[in-house]
């Protein structure tokens, strides 16, 4: 238990720093692709995280990013939306006899189809919220939508890569 908490605190710090120091400065395709890998923290919280903790952690994660990018409330609101959606997604995608709490929501444990549905919906929701709040208007609807879609794809690819790189310690026990 203590180990799990320590690992998640570490991954929180690592993902936020990685996002602020490296990924926020990538200029891919003239600003059309901005991967927000830090949401991987929320995606890979254990299945038995209490709902209130998911929501609070989402808020804290978003605020941490807001401090780095000087955008009060932007990441925080997107992450709270995403944390709330995660509660619903876990309910909808639950296996018939409930989750096996020795497993965690990662590709290696849950399979590619399950993971892409779960993470895909959450990441897309987060990015849509984030990009529309960032633009603060609806008149370029299509281009903002495309930007979110392309960035969400990039984020998902990075999520898969990050999990492939750290897979040794995450085999089912």
């Amino acid at each position, binding site marked *: 238990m203590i180990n799990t908490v320590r690992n998640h605190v570490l991954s929180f710090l690592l993902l936020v720093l990685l996002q*602020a120091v490296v990924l926020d400065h990538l200029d891919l395709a003239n600003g059309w692709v901005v991967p927000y890998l830090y949401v991987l923290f929320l995606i890979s919280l254990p299945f038995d995280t209490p709902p209130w903790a998911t929501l609070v952690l989402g808020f804290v994660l*978003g*605020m941490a990013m807001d401090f780095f990018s*000087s955008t009060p409330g932007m990441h925080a609101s997107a992450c709270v939306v995403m944390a*709330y959606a995660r509660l619903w997604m876990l309910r909808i995608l639950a296996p018939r006899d409930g989750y096996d709490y020795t497993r965690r929501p990662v590709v290696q444990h849950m399979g590619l189809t399950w993971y892409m549905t779960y993470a895909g919906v959450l990441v897309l929701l987060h990015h849509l919220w984030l990009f529309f709040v960032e633009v603060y208007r609806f008149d370029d609807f299509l281009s903002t939508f495309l930007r979110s879609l392309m960035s969400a794809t990039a984020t998902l690819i990075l999520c898969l890569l990050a999990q492939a790189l750290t897979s040794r310690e995450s085999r089912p026990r």
Partner: protein
Amino acid sequence: MRDLFRFLFRQRNNLLFLALMGVSVSLLINGNMHQRAQAISSSNAVIGQIYAWRNEVNEFTDLRAVNRQLAMALAAERNRRHTLPQQDTVQTIADSARRYSFITAQVINSTTHKERNYITLGSGSLAGIAPDMGVIGMGGLVGIVRDVSPHFALVTSILGNEFRTSVQLKRTGHFGLLGWDTSDPRTASLIDVANHVPVALGDTVVTRGNDGVFPPGVPVGVVIAVNNDPGSNFHDIRVRLGEDLTRTAYVHVVADLLKAERDSLEAMPALP
């Protein structure tokens, strides 16, 4: 009463969601409305320090480009001193030398590809930087200081969809507004220039300098395209920015020495 408590308990997650959502949305709205009244920014000491470390690593890779910029700025300064200026130029320069002072600062963090971009400077209020001061680079406008802490300053970049500043066509003297709606960090738009103004490609755009933020005549960029929409009374002008904000490493923060005097005059209530 017990039913109420039971209802609240059952809905506790939804209520928590609503509460957190309320907090973040109010931050969002306040942050956009009153840009001054907020502490959530990268001029915060801890965040500023992390960006300063990042910049120390990055500096090495940019040294060559920074050297070239500094050499060019030095050459331009030499040129200015060695060409014989006309009488009125001397007047302007002497005048602006008295009115504005320039603080050099290093850029330690910046983005250029978001909808609203911010720049963090490695100097703050201890160096004399205050909110609402203009920031100019070696080639032109960079932004306006939004927030300061003792050692860092946060600058709203001109690359932002809400940034507007008053500029002037140098050749004809007509005024317009500079805004960034191109999502390309090298160009910006010039709006509110009426159709009858003879704008030509290659015209220089400079600051108007009536706002107490930028001195007049700071180069902004060069006109690269003029579109005339038949339904509109105004030109649609594209400007190539003089400053490449994707590489800006050092900037000058403009302190208007007469700002306090001017503000107190303008704040006086109009007598009947």
